[in-house]
C-alpha cells in the first residue's frame, strides 16, 4: 500500500465513453495480484475532492506500466479522460484483496464473467491464469454494441462470449443467459460487475467454487472510514461486516450479502 506519483504514458478511447489509460511508475512492481485496485486523485478542470477507485486492468511488470480501463461517469473520470502522456497522477495502491490465482489446479477451467466496467480487472486475471496454463473462458456483458471493448484481447486468451442488453451485438440478454444457452462448463467462476449480475450468478451457481468482485462507494479505500461495508451471510446479529476496500473487493461466494 503505497502513495505514489505515476506518469501517463498513453490514453485512448476504446469504446463509447470507455477509455484505456496507461501509467508508468515504480509502484507498478507491487501490482502482482489481479483484482486489486488503485485509489487515485482525478483532479483537473472539473471539481473533485475525494479519490476514485479504479481496477487494475493490466500490468506490464517489466516496463512498470499499468493499464486501467474506465467509463466516463462524472467529474473524476471526465478529468481522467483529459490526461495526456506526460501528466502525473497521484495514486494509492495496490489496494484490497484480489482474485486467488493459485486456486485453479492444472486442468481446471475458470469461467470469467464481467459486466460493463467490471470487465477490466478480468483481463489481467485471465492473462495471469492463461500464463499458468489454466483454461479460461469468458462471458462479457455490455449494454450495447457501442460500449463493447477488449473482445479481441479476451479471445486471444480463450473462448469468449459477448452479450448486449439490447442485442445490438453478440447475444441479446444478460451474461447468465449466455452461460445457460451455451451450457458453459467450468470448475471455478470469477466475476466482476454490477451487483444484480453477481446476484444472478450466485443464484444460478450456488454450489460452485466462485469469487465475486464487488463495487461500493468509497471514502478512504484503506479500511478506516467504513463507507464500503457489506453484511456477512448467515450473521444473525446483523453487526458483522466486511470492508469492500480492505477485505475485498473480491470475496468467495457465500461470504458476504450481495
Amino acid at each position, binding site marked *: 500500500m503505497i502513495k505514489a506519483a505515476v506518469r501517463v504514458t498513453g490514453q485512448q478511447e476504446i469504446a463509447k465513453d470507455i477509455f484505456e489509460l496507461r501509467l508508468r511508475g515504480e509502484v507498478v512492481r507491487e501490482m502482482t495480484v489481479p483484482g486489486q485496485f488503485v485509489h487515485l486523485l482525478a483532479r483537473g478542470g472539473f*471539481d473533485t475532492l475525494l479519490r476514485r477507485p479504479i481496477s487494475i486492468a493490466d500490468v506490464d511488470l517489466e516496463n512498470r506500466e499499468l493499464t486501467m480501463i474506465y467509463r466516463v461517469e462524472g467529474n473524476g473520470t471526465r478529468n481522467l479522460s483529459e490526461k495526456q502522456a506526460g501528466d502525473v497522477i497521484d495514486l494509492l495502491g495496490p489496494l484490497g484483496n484480489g482474485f486467488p490465482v493459485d486456486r485453479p489446479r492444472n486442468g481446471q477451467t475458470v469461467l470469467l464473467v464481467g459486466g460493463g466496467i467490471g470487465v477490466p480487472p478480468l483481463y489481467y486475471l485471465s492473462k495471469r491464469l492463461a500464463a499458468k496454463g489454466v483454461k479460461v473462458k469468458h462471458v462479457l456483458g455490455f449494454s450495447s454494441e457501442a460500449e463493447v471493448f477488449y473482445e479481441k484481447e479476451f479471445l486471444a486468451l480463450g473462448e469468449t462470449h459477448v452479450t448486449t442488453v439490447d442485442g445490438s451485438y453478440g447475444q441479446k440478454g444478460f451474461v447468465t443467459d449466455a452461460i445457460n444457452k451455451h451450457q458453459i462448463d467450468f470448475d471455478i467462476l470469477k466475476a466482476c460487475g454490477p451487483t444484480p449480475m453477481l446476484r444472478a450468478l450466485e443464484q444460478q451457481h450456488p454450489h460452485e467454487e466462485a469469487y465475486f468482485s464487488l463495487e461500493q462507494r468509497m471514502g478512504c479505500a484503506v*479500511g*478506516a472510514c467504513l463507507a464500503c461495508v457489506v453484511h456477512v451471510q448467515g450473521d444473525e446479529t446483523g453487526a458483522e461486516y466486511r470492508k469492500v476496500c*480492505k477485505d475485498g473487493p473480491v470475496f468467495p461466494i457465500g461470504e458476504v450479502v450481495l
Partner: protein
Amino acid sequence: MNRLQVDLPGLSMKNPIMPASGCFGFGQEYAEFYDLNKLGAIAIKAATFEPRFGNPTPRVAETASGMLNAIGLQNPGVDQIVAEKLPWLEQYDVPILANIAGSAMEDYVETVKKISEAPNVNALELNISCPNVKEGGIAFGTKPELAAELTKRVKEASELPLYVKLSPNTADIVGIAKAVEEAGADGLSMINTLLGMRIDRKTGQPVLANGAGGLSGPAVKPVAIRMIYEVSQAVSIPIIGMGGIQSAEDVVEFFMAGASAVAVGTANFIDPFVCPSIIEDLPGVLDELKVDTISDLIGRSWK
C-alpha cells in the same frame, strides 16, 4: 522547548494535530502508512454501548469541496473496543480521546463507565451531534438543557476530562457551548458535520441510502472558523477545532480563530499522510509569521 506542544485537559500533545473521530478508525489502517507516534493525539471512532452496523450503503457522496457521510456510528461496541482496539493502541505513546455516542442518556453513561476503565484513554469526547442516527443523538446537540444534563451525568460517571463535541446545525452555538461549560465540560470539540444531501439526477433519489448525511471537508471550514471565533470568546475552556483542515496554514487559521488544538478528518481520505505532513510543515509556517510557539496564536483574531 517544543514549539508545537499544546496542553489541554488530559491531553498533553507534542503537537496540536489529531485525526478526527470516525476518519481514522482505531488507527490500525494508518499505522501501515506511518508511525502513529508522530501524532499529537488520536480521536478514535465513536463507541456505543452495543455493536452497531450503521446505515445501509451508499454511505458517502462527494460535494463541491466537501463530502457527505452517513456511516451511522458503525462500531463494534464498547466491550470489544476496550478488549481489542484500545489494547492495540497501547504500543503508542499518544494520548487517546475516546469518542462516545448514544441515543439515550443511559447509553452514554454506561458506555463512558466502561471505556473509562481502559488504561490508555486520556479523555472523552462526547458526540452529541451525530447527524446520522435517527434516535436522539443530534437532539442533544441542539437543545442547551439536554446537552447540559448529559454533560453533567457523564461527568459524574467518569473522572476523565470531558470534551463535548458540538453540532453546527444550530442557531445558537454559543448558547450550547456555555451550557455545557457550566455543566462541567473540560473542553469543546467543534465542529461536527453540517446536515446535507445530494440527489442523483439519474435515479431522482438521494445518493445516500440514508437520505441526508453529514457534510465535512473544506466547504465547511468557514462555518467552523466562525463558530470557533464566537465560542472561544464566550467560554474559558479550550477548543479542539476541526472542519475542512487540509494544511498547516489551515491549522494556523483555526488557532487564530480560537482553537487550542485541531483535528483532521476528511483530509485523511485524500492524503493518508496528511497529519504527519501538516506536523512537518507547521514550524515553517510559524517562522513565516515570526511566532515562537503555536499556542501564541490562540485567539489572535479577537485578542
